[in-house]
């Protein structure tokens, strides 16, 4: 557990009587006492059973089943489940669509992650000034996060509507050419990233806000006595304190963005001309439109391997810190 994390949970921890950080540290007195009492308690099996059963059925089993499927030519209709070795994987690596949709996924991740972190930080810093209207600011920035993707689709599709949509109306009002927000191959991914930022930035905003509330006021007071101005305090106190949480938010955001599906599927169905199709949609298309379950599973596992490598790489420095 990193320092930033402790500060995030702090407001809640304070509310609970008797929450002590030291109780969970191994080797302390409390831990020894607990062990002796726990040793007699053999009921753990019963408590863990429902969760273990659900995990086994809906996570472990499909994981193994999918792996097996990826070595077969199984189809959705259930026919053909012969073992075909690595044929699906060989096909996946030479399938230009796999590489293309993978690139779209990465491109979307880059386009969305940067503003999703920066805008969230700016919002949190502005709200954390304590200026009047706290309730309104929080509401405005976080409300879109509470919308389901289908609502976001309806709203943004309407904004992007050619000619009569709000954006085109404003463009022509400003004397500019209307843009093919979702129909121009060069624009569509930017539009989708924009919608995503609007939709989900509130989440990162809340994480930043919680971290900001964890910065001790004394630090600011000390700086004020030393004569540091507002900007100076921002750069010498606030931002350095946010370094750890920024790392966490970036990683969480990257992992979330890589799994993009809803908004692209709803807004463009991967178009125009396949130019926005992410890899998850390709997997979906292969499995549920082309009925090639075996091949779809193989692509899933290639994608999973990439996410796993990414996750493991980022776990290592975290362990060092702990």
């Amino acid at each position: 557990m990193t320092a930033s994390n402790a500060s995030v949970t702090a407001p809640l921890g304070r509310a609970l009587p008797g929450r002590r950080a030291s109780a969970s540290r191994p080797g302390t007195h409390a831990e020894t006492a607990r062990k002796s009492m726990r040793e007699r308690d053999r009921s753990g099996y019963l408590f863990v059973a429902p969760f273990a059963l659900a995990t086994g059925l809906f996570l472990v089993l499909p994981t193994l089943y999918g792996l097996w499927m990826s070595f077969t030519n199984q189809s959705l209709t259930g026919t053909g489940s012969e073992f075909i070795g690595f044929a699906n994987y060989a096909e996946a690596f030479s399938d230009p669509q796999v590489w293309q949709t993978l690139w779209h996924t990465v491109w979307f991740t880059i386009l969305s992650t940067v503003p999703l972190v920066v805008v969230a930080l700016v919002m949190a810093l502005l709200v954390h000034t304590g200026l009047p209207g706290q309730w309104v600011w929080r509401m405005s920035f976080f409300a879109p996060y509470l919308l389901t993707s289908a609502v976001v689709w309806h709203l943004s599709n309407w904004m992007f509507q050619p000619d009569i949509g709000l954006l085109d109306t404003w463009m022509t009002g400003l004397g500019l050419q209307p843009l093919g927000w979702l129909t121009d191959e060069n624009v569509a991914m930017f539009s989708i990233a924009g919608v995503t930022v609007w939709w989900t930035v509130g989440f990162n905003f809340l994480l930043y806000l919680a971290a900001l509330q964890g910065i001790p006021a004394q630090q600011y007071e000390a700086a004020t006595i030393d004569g540091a101005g507002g900007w100076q305090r921002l750069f010498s106190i606030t931002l350095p304190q946010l370094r750890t949480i920024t790392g966490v938010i970036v990683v969480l955001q990257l992992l979330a963005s890589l799994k993009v599906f809803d908004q692209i599927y709803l807004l463009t169905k991967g178009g125009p001309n396949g130019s926005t199709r992410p890899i998850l949609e390709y997997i979906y298309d292969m499995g549920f439109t082309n009925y090639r379950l075996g091949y779809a599973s193989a692509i899933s596992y290639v994608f999973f391997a990439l996410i796993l490598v990414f996750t493991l790489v980022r776990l290592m420095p975290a362990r060092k810190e702990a």
Partner: protein
Amino acid sequence: MAVADISAVRRTKAAQDRAENRALTKLTIGPSPWARAGALAALVVLAGIWLVPLFWGAVTSFKHEAEAALPASLWPTMGWTLDAYQKVLSNSELPLWMWNSLVVAVLVTALTVLISAMAAFAFSQTLFKGRALMQWLTIASIMMPGQILIVPLFREMQVLGLVDTFAGIVLPQVVAPVMVFILKRFFDAIPQELLDAARIDGASSWRLFWTIVLPLSRSILVAVAIFVFIGAWNNFLWPFIITTDPQFMTLPVGLSTVKDAYGVQYAQNMASAMIAALPLLVVFMLFQRRIVQGVATTGMGGQ
């Protein structure tokens, strides 16, 4: 009298908040009125941008269909009407989808919180053979993105006969290893003397769990429940894959089929969107503080 007390407490609390905020302003941006005005202006602009789509969608939903098809305006010129809402509520399955979503989200939340809390209790307060292995497996499964399991999971559901059933929609969503760890961390911090005393008095683990651990953990349980509920209410991909029968569609899935049904009837589209958006927005307005805290606490997940 009690009412007067509560409102007095509220007033004091609000005054306290205001004082705290003023102090915060002094600490962060200092006394300069220009700096304050600048920050306030930035907030107004950002909030404006963020509210425009919602505001515009709401306005459109009250327009006559004929006007909604004209170039966009932020204010209706042909007058306000509830036509769109009337049509959507009487001609579509929106109320049914909403009910389905409520059932699914409540079931997912209740089951997830219950089985996660039980597992967390087992990891935190009991010893059993294979506990370390189970914990390790739980951590490992946090890394498993559910999205890549859609193909084998759907096949499994076909075999189990759970396609187009509530069980099929709900059950795969109750596996939340991250929540187990959030709860375990919290249970670890419960004062051990309390539990030991109860054990000495002969309380069973089951009793310990229900009468000591859960009541003490109300805040984190609410936080987890809020987070799970928002996720389940809004989940699109899995319900979209497992349902084909409109009878079982949740709101997000049903809503995604709506455009073709209405053609270019924007007022109706927006009315459906508004109806779908309203429940969570209202809940958020009522319990903002709790929800903000809950999301911030659980949102960090296993980090």
